[in-house]
């Protein structure tokens, strides 16, 4: 009975593993000729996973029956919300990848498989309620990620990105493990619920160190300042579809994981980590904004923008309240749409030789040569800057609302004032596309799939997105409530 229940809850993960293994065999048998077919199959698998996970968002995703394997794993509404976002991001990345790699004859069958296994790792991350399970999920995701970053193996930048990502990622994993071992040493358990109980009351110095190291390791994964250095290099070097993936899915997974660790495992000592999160949030907002100003490569710019956005999401975490968590989830959902929209637009920027255009200066006058594409990119930029009436504003709105409700008015005021710095470079891109004379660098055509993805994300970012707010609010509220089961 117990096993039956557990296997039922784990259906999406089971499907991902089996599908991954079977497709791996197919890939081994058929070779790269089957790459496209495997990609399509992988997207279908992700869609089915999404369908499987969706019911947990409702009433089924809360309460003690969501915990299985002796408290190591929890399939609650919170995990379901994050998983849906992850599946959407991974599927979008798979959809845009073939067109990109085909031009280098580099579309190999491993690509969709790596994405699938990485997604499996992320599923484990967002559902893990035990330090061991957490680490397994994190490594599964990261290892696939390292390979993905260097996927374009003939390209120096891509290899360099993969190597950097690997070395720094290994370091972060080490820090995380060190922190986890300290936490285990001072609490005597690896389960989040056990740690929560053991940490209540007086906080020993060793446990404090454990908390700090665990959070530092996780801060690397979400690329929060001061552990953000790798982000621009890896985002620039990695093939653009992979960057799309990095900026969306693993980030969501790592943020969800951080939230669960902070609120569940360390929930009894919120005061101990709140100041760390507040610092990381403000530093990310400011460094992300200042760093982006000097960038001339659009991918690097979006990398800094993602650091900036992580800062805003962390403000929701700093609240340590259910509203804050709900706000984070809403922000993440909007962030996924903005990121995918942004990178898909970047992927559509091709020059006459069908190469990617990445220099921001080459976008000059895009509004006259490619008005629709420019309008979509401008929508992304204004939305990222959080200018109403675009929907990006709503993410910032809910996060700051949660901060004000948690009496962190000063944090909210500083954070929002710093967002004006960010607006500077976002409107710079718009300026180059709309105000400058055309240079006619971007002339390549894009296929319908890209347009469909871009159109869908642009529709979400448009003012029509506000019609989703009630729905998003309910789902995220339910998800956040399921995380606060211990209260």
């Amino acid at each position, binding site marked *: 009975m117990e096993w039956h229940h557990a296997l039922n809850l784990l259906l999406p993960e089971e499907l991902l593993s089996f599908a991954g293994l079977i497709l791996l065999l197919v890939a081994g048998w058929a070779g790269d000729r089957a790459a496209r077919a495997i990609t399509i199959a992988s997207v279908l698998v992700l869609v089915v996973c999404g369908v499987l996970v969706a019911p947990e968002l409702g009433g089924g995703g809360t309460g003690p029956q969501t915990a299985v394997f002796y408290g190591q794993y929890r399939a609650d509404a919170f995990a379901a919300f994050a998983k849906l976002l992850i599946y959407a991001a991974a599927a979008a990345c798979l959809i845009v990848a073939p067109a990109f790699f085909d031009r280098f004859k580099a579309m190999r069958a491993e690509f969709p498989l790596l994405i699938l296994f990485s997604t499996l790792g992320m599923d484990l991350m967002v559902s893990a309620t035990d330090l061991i399970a957490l680490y397994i999920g994190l490594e599964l995701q990261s290892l696939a990620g390292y390979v993905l970053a260097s996927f374009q193996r003939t390209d120096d930048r891509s290899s360099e990105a993969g190597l950097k990502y690997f070395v720094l990622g290994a370091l972060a994993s080490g820090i995380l493990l060190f922190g986890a071992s300290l936490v285990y040493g001072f609490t005597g358990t690896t389960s989040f619920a056990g740690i929560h109980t053991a940490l209540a009351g007086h906080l020993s110095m060793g446990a404090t160190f454990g908390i700090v190291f665990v959070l530092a390791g996780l801060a690397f994964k979400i690329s929060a300042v001061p552990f953000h250095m790798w982000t621009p290099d890896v985002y620039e070097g990695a093939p653009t579809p992979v960057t799309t993936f990095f900026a969306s899915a693993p980030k969501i997974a790592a943020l969800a994981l951080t939230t669960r660790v902070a609120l569940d495992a360390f929930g009894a000592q919120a005061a101990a980590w709140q100041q760390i999160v507040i610092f990381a949030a403000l530093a990310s907002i400011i460094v992300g904004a200042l760093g982006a100003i000097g960038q001339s490569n659009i991918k690097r710019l979006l990398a800094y923008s993602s650091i900036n956005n992580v800062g805003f999401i962390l403000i929701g975490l700093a609240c340590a309240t259910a509203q804050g968590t709900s706000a984070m989830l809403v922000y993440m959902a909007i962030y996924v749409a903005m990121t995918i929209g942004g990178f898909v637009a970047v992927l559509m920027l091709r020059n006459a030789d069908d190469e990617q255009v990445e220099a921001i200066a080459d976008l000059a006058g895009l*509004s*006259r040569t490619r008005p629709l594409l420019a309008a979509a990119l401008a929508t992304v930029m*204004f939305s990222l800057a959080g*200018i*109403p*009436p*675009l929907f990006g*504003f709503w993410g910032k*709105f*809910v996060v*700051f*609302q949660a901060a*004000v*409700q948690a009496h962190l*008015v000063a944090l*909210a*005021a500083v954070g*929002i*004032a710093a*967002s*004006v710095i960010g*607006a*500077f470079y976002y*409107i710079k891109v*718009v*300026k180059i596309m*709309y*105000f400058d004379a055309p240079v006619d660098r971007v002339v390549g055509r894009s296929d319908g799939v890209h347009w469909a993805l871009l159109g869908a994300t642009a529709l979400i970012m448009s003012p029509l997105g*506000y*019609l989703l*707010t*009630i729905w*998003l*609010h*309910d789902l995220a509220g339910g998800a956040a409530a399921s995380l606060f089961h211990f209260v």
Partner: protein
Amino acid sequence: MAGLPILSLMLLVPFVGAIACLVVEAQAARRIALVATLIDLVLGVVLWLNYDIGGPQWQFTERLPLFAGFSWALGIDGIALVLILLSVFLMPICIGASWRAIETRVGEYMASFLLMETLMLGVFAAQDLFLFYIFFEGGLIPMYLIIGIWGGKDRIYASYKFFLYTLLGSVLMLIAMLWMANEAGTTDIPTLMAYDFPVSAQRLLWLAFFASFAVKMPMWPVHTWLPDAHVQAPTAGSVILAGVLLKMGGYGFIRFSLPMFPQASAEFAWLIFGLSMVAVVYTSLVALVQHDMKKLIAYSSVAHMAIVTAGLFAFNRQGLEGAMIVMLSHGVVSGALFLTVGLIYDRLHTREIDRYGGLSINMPYYALFFMLFTMASVGLPGTSGFIGEFLSLTGVYQLSSWVALVCTTGIILGAGYMLYLYRRVAFGDLKHADAAAMPDLSWREWAMMLPLGLSVLWIGVYPESFIAPIRQDVAALDARLAQARPQGDSRLTPGKAAPARALALRGGAR
């Protein structure tokens, strides 16, 4: 009439027009924009005719719980009505002014303008705190594009300055709004207007709102984006900037700062007065030495808006009503002045004052209109400028005779720079051959100038049409402010005027 969501309709028409403009070619975009703005003008007049003066404070209310955390709540009182009328009145004129002047990317231009209209009307009609914010802030995007794409030489610098200044001002307001919604438990503006926030919190909230409205207004010393934006914006952009966008600051003070934080408003009145006095004198002097006509009018706008802020914080009915009328009058007059500059700019492509001269000889009708608007700007009795300035200065005088004295110098200086401008442009000899060759007003320009000229005279001769709808709302605001009204220094004692009949009797006995 009751069932028709007329305010939503007014927001929808330009919005749909904006989308339509994006997909059609230039001439069709012009026509669509004109038709959409004219429909809104008609709807605005319908709104005016159906507005029940003396009826409930909030009319034409709509409320749809469409969103989480806030709702689609619209509704207007007299103050909003007057400003909505101003917006819908100026919009078709702006479209007309851009008919020939804008040659490139017409569809996008018209779309930006129509979007702008939707957002402006939304600001005045919103009854929900966050809906207001979204409209208020959303105006940045179309205005940024209008200045940046179709502006003059330094348009990029001006557009950045405009965007970042106003954004920084407004984000602090957002935090204050979030706090207020949390404290009061509602986002409904009419409810919040009657909510008594703790006095200690009022100060911070007031400052946060001040940061936003002072930039939009614009008050000295955060006015510097305005001359840059004006000079670089196309004519219609300037008209809408001066005519309506600046009014958002004043509207913000009258809708939020004063009724929601009366005690803090009284405490900070000295700040407002101080900045207003500096602005009146300083920007008037700056205007006096400008070579660029648009810049001159831009600085004069700052000076006029300073009289608005002084009048608003006079804490009495004359001041409030006067400030409203100055806003209305300034909207029409400065819009008209920018248009008169635009007309000769279209002909000669320069705004240097020295390049003109003697235009009353070859363009007599043009000079006539220019004269009318110059006089209205100076505040000549019989024009709209006089009514508003007189009322607001009367209001200010009751509170502080010194402030009134300093602000009145603005009228004198205003006469100085405006008449000086007029003399250099319209009088004297025709020095330049190209200026002498300029033709007088075309029928299209007549169609723009005539309504503006008539409305200047209308407000000047019979302001009751515009004061009547706001009277009740100003009285309500005045009553709300009574708890915090500071003591004035003029020590006015109501005189015991002899009854008219007694006077008549005395006259008869003599």
